[in-house]
């Protein structure tokens, strides 16, 4: 056994209101630059829909993540030799049009236009060419099911799910996505240059901007399409899990700014030697095997072994208070996004409850048997098609509501849960009331001696020329042809 610590996140989809504050604060922090205008390290999708980039979940098309060859795990796009043979043209690389053609507006015209009979307008112009354009696809083009009658049926998660795209009968949920900082990252495995790596101490996956040679296999290798190609610098960039913030004990920008307080950050301990086996588990066991990888930090033997393996005591203490461990392992209400991609993502999701389908007068609480969001759809999203772990999570969420309704109104409650009332109440407190310090248990990294901090003042991580931080230049306005 080789114990490692990992910073992980849980997002409670039951509470996401789709406001995009996470996306906007992230963009202002990290991708407000030339070459990554199109890139959203954090984005929020309305499901059902094709998402960003279009149909990213369809690995028969994009060939991201891992696949089983017999019992052996191999990159779905092919192994090392296959990579080198396609190095002159990566057949699985999306183009900018699969995300969207980034544009800005001619704001100068509003101030500089000569007097005329008509109001001057700010026309949209492509950032790539400077030419006037008519945007036909963009970020959140499907927001709140906009155009869902067209794009909704193309959602890859709809396999085997009957869905009506009529106003009164349809459903929606929001899916915020960041890099999953996987335990078995396909992007790292796909990088021929060895520029992508997992940090030993906290598991954050980063791209070494100095070592990246722009071969682009991380972009195609990641099944979540979360590494982005900076078309201006010719290098790959990705979500940094805001490491300059978490090293100081602060939550990531997306988590800090979340209006609905849906995000939880914490440390989990796991067995690094067990990763390959868990990643190669049979389809039906994926969720259980990935969950079984996490070790119980309250177990003194685990704690002793972790300390021996070099995990600092403060981190083990943080792991004991980890909201991620409680939600994902102890109460099993959080699930990994597309575990069938076999990368072992470290951002897990609490599935959303939804109103009852059809007319159910007098019913106050949701019933997992007749929810508006089909169980099969959530299962395709969060459990490789297996409805049982999703149903279990939803039943516990309903049990929390039943209990709290009984405690608040005094009404008798008919159904019981497999969790005792005190645990349900604890779960309720974490989901509904938890303060900043309970939602974000991020131990500081104490890197004060790791580098010459004097020379690093004002830097932020992506701090090459034109990058983020004190040395970064302002993004250039779109050029005129």
């Amino acid at each position, binding site marked *: 056994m080789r114990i490692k610590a990992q910073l992980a996140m849980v997002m409670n989809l039951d509470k996401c209101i789709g406001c995009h504050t996470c996306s906007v604060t992230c963009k202002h922090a990290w991708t407000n630059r030339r070459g990554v205008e199109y890139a959203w390290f954090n984005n929020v999708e309305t499901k059902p829909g094709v998402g960003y980039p279009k149909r990213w979940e369809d690995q028969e098309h994009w060939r991201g993540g891992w696949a089983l060859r017999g019992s052996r795990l191999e990159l779905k796009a092919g192994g090392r030799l296959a990579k080198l043979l396609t190095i002159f043209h990566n057949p699985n690389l999306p183009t900018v049009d699969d995300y969207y053609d980034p544009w800005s507006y001619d704001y100068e015209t509003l101030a500089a236009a000569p007097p005329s009979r008509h109001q001057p307008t700010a026309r949209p112009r492509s950032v790539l060419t400077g030419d006037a354009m008519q945007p036909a696809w963009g970020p959140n083009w499907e927001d709140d099911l906009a155009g869902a009658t067209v794009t909704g049926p193309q959602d890859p998660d709809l396999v085997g799910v009957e869905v009506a795209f009529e106003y009164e009968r349809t459903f929606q949920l929001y899916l915020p996505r960041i890099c999953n900082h996987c335990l078995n990252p396909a992007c*790292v495995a796909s990088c021929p240059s060895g520029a992508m790596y997992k940090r030993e101490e906290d598991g954050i996956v980063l791209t070494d901007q100095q070592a*990246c040679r722009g071969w682009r296999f991380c972009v195609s290798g990641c099944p979540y399409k979360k590494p982005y190609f900076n078309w201006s*610098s010719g290098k790959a960039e990705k979500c940094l899990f805001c490491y300059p913030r978490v090293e100081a004990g602060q939550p990531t920008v997306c988590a800090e700014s979340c209006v609905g307080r849906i995000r939880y950050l914490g440390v989990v301990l796991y067995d690094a030697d067990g990763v390959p086996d868990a990643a190669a588990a049979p389809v039906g066991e994926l969720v259980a095997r990935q969950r079984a990888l996490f070790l119980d930090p309250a177990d003194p033997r685990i704690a002793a072994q972790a300390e021996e393996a070099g995990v600092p005591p403060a981190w083990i203490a943080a792991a004991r208070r980890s909201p991620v461990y409680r939600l994902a392992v102890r109460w099993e209400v959080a699930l990994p996004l597309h575990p069938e991609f076999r990368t072992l993502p470290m951002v897990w999701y609490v599935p959303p409850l939804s109103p009852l389908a059809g007319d159910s007068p007098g019913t106050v609480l949701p019933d997992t048997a007749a929810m508006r969001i089909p169980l099969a759809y959530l299962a395709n999203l969060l459990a490789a098609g297996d409805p049982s772990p999703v149903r279990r999570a939803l039943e516990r969420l309903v049990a929390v509501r039943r209990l709290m309704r009984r405690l608040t109104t005094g009404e008798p409650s008919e159904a019981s849960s497999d969790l005792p009332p005190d645990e349900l109440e604890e779960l309720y407190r974490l989901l509904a009331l938890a303060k900043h310090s309970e939602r974000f248990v991020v131990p500081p990294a104490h890197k004060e001696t790791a580098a010459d901090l004097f020379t690093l003042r004002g830097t932020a991580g992506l701090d090459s020329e034109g990058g983020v931080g004190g040395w970064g230049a302002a993004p250039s306005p779109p050029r005129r042809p």
Partner: protein
Amino acid sequence: MSLTGQFLWVILPYLALSIFVLGHLYRYGFSQYTWTARSSEFLEKRQLRWASQLFHYGIIFVFLGHVLGLLVPAAWTGALGVSERLYQEQALLLGGVAGLLAVVGIVWFNWRRWSVARLRRNSSLGDYLAIALLLLVIALGIYNTLLYPLSHHGPYNYRATIAPWLRGFLTGRPDAALMVHVPATFQLHLLAAFLLFALWPFTRLVHLWSLPLAYLRRRYILYRGLPPEAR
């Protein structure tokens, strides 16, 4: 020996070689962030698919052909039983095919870069120069291989002049006299190549040195730890 000959076939090639070596060392040492293939596949993929593969596979075989034709002395291939006629025929056939692949690829590259607005507006001078010079060098090479023999009653025997000059140049004993009477189109092919090599370290062409062969033997998942003093 004329001063011009000395300049063109001794001073100029060594100057180009010096810039080539020192330029690479400088850029590798001081500007890792700019060391990339600067791929444009993300902006235009449909044409690149064909142009890039034609060019790259073509140029690899063209390079191997140059090694065989210039660095291996004629006497060695002769000792192996390869007659001059057989050598010339295979050079024409294999070299011609590889050269044609490369020339189609590089013409397509140039056309693509100028015709696709997304590329035209986002290309550096180095991007344009690299593919323009490659086109010039390859076009002259194709002329020398395929067209020169037609108008001059057979191929030019560069293995008696250019090849020994190159071997002398690379081993520090350059003999400009070997090059003075070489046909003009062959001379131009070399002079254009000198310019290409001198510009090489300052363009995207540096990605040649980053061919990731180490990937074939690497483990998939990489970890990086903190420096020892920070643990």
